């Protein structure tokens, strides 16, 4: 592996210092205890909401520390495992050149016995290029399975292919995920364990440098595929992520095939496999490279789909009540799925200062500096922990997008509670240009509310300490919203005046800095 690769794949090598993890838990609990029991309560409704939010934060932090506590895998690996494999490339209208690259890479994999199949869903998805996929299959000598009967989206496509293939093992790639030559060699050996259900590898985005959206999409992934999945591996709770994975046909059949009634089909199928006693393993090596959503709308839709799917797991298939799961697995599914409830907590935290600005009501009544004394070490240690565990791959923009996604998470929550239908939308592989500000209206409204609220509060009580502290809290939230709003805004290339243009030398220097 080259130095360049070492840097690209640094997210896989984060370390979790146990004393730091313990300290983070202690500080979180201390902070919670202090604000709950030692501060004077203000408005009871606001206080209850604040505490509910803090309980959620505590759950997430302790859950995170528990997950990343250690990296260990007891899975047995047989390097010369050679049973036959069906490789599935799921396709639904992606550009033909992207599919071709993936197909060629799949054919080039080093393994004794495998068949590459393109699962062409373009016909049922009414995509124009579905017949081009068939032609591509002919050109490359690949079996193309074109579905005629719609239903079940990607899961339906896979289930359809399962009926037409026979190998005991299946490997799935999205159309844009180009496997390395060594993929099968590195993955299939884990199936020497007859109870191995599936093997997951990281979903790496090689277009992360294209723009802000791709970069953030990857930054968020890096935390998940770095420390979190490695931790889940230790706890036997890895879940499938839809691509770059290998499955046992027997295990999949036992779970009833890929789950077609949830838009996060991979998540739920993993749960079904685990509750039937199948094992899973995560291989912390990048063995395929894919594409991140390149525009704000695609990112938004992808996040919405993941949120909706995960929340459905909580409300319809709550892991706590699934009998076959171990306690560790129950906890891990619950921690992962409940992450998407954070939208409601973000809303509560964001609204508390706004409510103060307009009404003067507060959740707690205390010296703002005492709050600072317990809050500051807690937040700095939490963020430092995030950095060390992700091996310094995580970014503020990733945090910003996570916080700013509160509204889509709330929308997804409402959709789940009201049982609204959501169609499976494939993440676009090409950037869609446009103005997506309509997707960030709540965030813009928040900024307006902050300004108006500040004026109202100033009229009411002058430049008091409480007013300043609450404005500062609101500004923190505004700072988190700004990158999200900027990403949603239309990109206008204003001609720059001559003095602002970069010289060739400066451009070269910037390029070198970026590369290095």
């Amino acid at each position, binding site marked *: 592996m080259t130095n360049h690769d070492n840097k690209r794949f640094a997210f896989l090598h984060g370390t979790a210092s146990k004393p730091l993890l313990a300290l983070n838990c202690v500080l979180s609990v201390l902070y919670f205890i202090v604000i709950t029991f030692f501060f004077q309560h203000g408005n009871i409704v606001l206080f209850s909401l604040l505490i509910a939010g803090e309980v959620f934060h505590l759950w997430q932090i302790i859950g995170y520390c528990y997950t990343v506590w250690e990296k260990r895998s007891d899975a047995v690996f047989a390097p010369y495992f050679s049973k036959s494999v069906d490789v599935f490339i799921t396709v639904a209208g992606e550009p033909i050149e992207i599919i071709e690259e993936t197909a060629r890479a799949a054919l080039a994999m080093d393994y004794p016995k495998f068949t590459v199949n393109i699962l062409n869903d373009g016909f049922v998805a009414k995509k124009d290029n579905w017949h081009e996929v068939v032609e591509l299959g002919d050109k490359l000598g690949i079996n193309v399975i074109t579905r005629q009967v719609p239903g079940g989206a990607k899961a339906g496509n896979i289930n359809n292919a399962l009926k037409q293939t026979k190998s005991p093992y299946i490997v799935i790639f999205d159309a844009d995920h180009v496997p390395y030559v060594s993929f099968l060699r590195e993955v299939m050996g884990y199936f020497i364990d007859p109870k191995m259900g599936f093997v997951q590898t990281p979903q790496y985005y090689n277009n992360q440098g294209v723009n802000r959206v791709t970069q953030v999409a990857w930054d968020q992934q890096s935390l998940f595929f770095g420390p979190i999945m490695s931790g889940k591996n230790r706890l036997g709770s890895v879940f499938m992520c839809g691509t770059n994975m290998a499955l046992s046909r027997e295990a999949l059949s036992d779970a009833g095939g890929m789950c077609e009634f949830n838009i996060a089909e991979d998540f739920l199928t993993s749960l079904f496999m685990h509750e039937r006693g199948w094992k899973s393993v995560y291989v912390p090596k990048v063995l395929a490279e894919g594409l991140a959503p390149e525009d704000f709308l695609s990112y938004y839709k992808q996040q919405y789909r993941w949120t909706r799917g995960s929340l459905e797991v909580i409300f319809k298939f709550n892991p706590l009540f699934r009998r076959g799961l171990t306690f560790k697995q129950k906890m891990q599914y619950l921690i992962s799925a409940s992450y998407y409830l954070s939208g409601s907590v973000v809303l509560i935290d964001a609204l508390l200062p706004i409510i103060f600005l307009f009404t003067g009501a507060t959740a707690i009544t205390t010296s703002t500096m005492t709050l600072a004394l317990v809050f500051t070490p807690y937040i700095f240690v939490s963020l430092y922990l995030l*950095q060390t565990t992700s091996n310094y791959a995580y970014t503020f923009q990733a945090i910003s997008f996570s916080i700013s996604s509160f509204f889509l998470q709330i929308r997804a929550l409402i959709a789940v509670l009201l049982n609204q239908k959501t169609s499976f939308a494939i993440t676009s592989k090409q950037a869609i240009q446009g103005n997506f500000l309509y997707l960030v209206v709540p965030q813009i409204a928040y900024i307006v509310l902050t300004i108006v609220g500040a004026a109202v509060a100033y009229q009411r009580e002058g430049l008091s300490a*409480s007013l300043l502290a609450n404005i500062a809290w609101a500004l923190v939230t505004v700072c988190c919203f700004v990158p999200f709003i900027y990403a949603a805004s239309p990109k206008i290339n204003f001609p720059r005046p001559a003095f602002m243009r970069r010289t060739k030398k400066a451009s070269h220097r910037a390029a070198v800095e970026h590369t290095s």
Partner: protein
Amino acid sequence: MNWFRKKISPKVRANRQAARTQANAKKVAAHKANESLKQQFINAQAELKADRSTLAQRIYIGLGLLFCMAGAVAISHFLLINNSLRLDESQSIWQVSHSFTGMLEVVAQDVHMPLYHIILQQWIFFFGDSTTAVRSLSMIFFLLTIPMVYLLSRQILSRRWALAVTALFSFSPFMNWYANEARMYTLLVLFATINQYFFARILKYNKGWWGYAISAIFGAYSHYFFMFNLLAQATYYLINHKSFVKGAFKRFVAVMVAMLIAISPWITYFVMQGLASNTRPLIERPTAVNFFNVYSQFLFGFQTDAVNTAIVSLWPLILIVAFFTVKRHLKLEKTVGYLLAMSFVPIVAAFALSFVVTPFFLSRYMVSAIAPLTIAIAWLISRYRRNFAVFLMVAWFGIVGATFAQQVNSFDTPVKENYSVAAKDIESHASIHDVIVISSPFTVYPFEYYYNGPLQIRTLPLWDRQNVGAVPAFNEAALPQQVDQLKQGHDYIYLLLSYDQGYEKKIQQYFDMRYEKTRSEKYSDGLMLYVYRVGYDTMPEILPTVQNYQAQQSP
């Protein structure tokens, strides 16, 4: 021997062998790690050699440092040096006015290390005890610190950034205040910065042990709170001992032992003097507000209550700083971690000990944290894109400039003690039948420094200064008797109140309830004058004023 061998089962033997192998493997691993660390140090030294400044760069750096020093001198000359002497400064002057042994005695009683006073005594011998002369010594220590801050910054920053940080430090409102005060704080900062620099060199290159040891000894003799500097380093060492080569621990212990031996004569003498005197001002137990005030003062200087409240109330904005630390590849280098330890451990430790031992939490005692704090913040900014980083630095300079201006110009800046104006004012208004009463008693020193009139200066509680050391405690029951004693034969009492020791209000109320208040004046924050009519023997308007009296006395 055979009977013994037979008793050891093969399993036990195998376990022992495994334990031996494991221990050997650990030793080998530790040796390898140590060798790798040594290689890292060699590489770092080679990098340092390769990065030596060219002549042009040296001139550029030299000019930059000269600009910083000149700036500090200009600030002092135009804005600060002529401020009224503060209580602590007057005490310094009073203490060094004794014989050498007498000075050591009063310094020990005042709970201070003697190095500054020894130097000050010699300084006054050559340059006199005018305000400008005594304060210049602190300014010299400050000017010597400036290049040290540059060298410390260079451990983690480029030349330009190091110069920018040095400029920020040079124009720091907090540092400039103490650079113009006849106290030991800039001496403390000088040795603390030298010590921090050598520790950083040990950490980075495994070099600088002698410099570290010598600066530790001198630092310990400059102020008791230098120990917090060493405590922070010890904490850092305990957490990151793997960053140091084998044998570093022994050397650190040797340095500490040498330092303790060096200061032991003074500590013995201090203990023999009875540990502490009653002359210490009352320091209250710190609160969370005090904790954050320390950082607010380090960064923005001394501000009025209103401005300070505004600054510290905006603390949630720290969260934005916290978010900015989450950046790709923004790894906390070991030297940065060390500077962070130097910025926070002393303050946290002093805060905690103020609860456990006795309250002593004052920002000036922790002044050695300013340079590391400034450098660490600048390091974070320097990791961002150039334009953004430059914007942040310019904003920082702007804020520092604005808060400095506010500190200098505001009448209510809390550290200002306008005893000179108070003395001149009383001198011009009081008659020879009046008496000046000062409380707290030890504030008599700065007042006396400026007061040239003939009136009696008394204190409340009554204090006979011929009895060394002890300021009598306030006794409410004895107050009427003491006031009666004071007013005896006088028409007006000029009651000058400052440095509230917990009884100021009681004294004021006592006078308010019994005597006619004819005047009140505020000279600076916490320095109040109240004039009470206590006698009616003579008509005040026909009495000669002090000026008239002096005019009559003069030929």
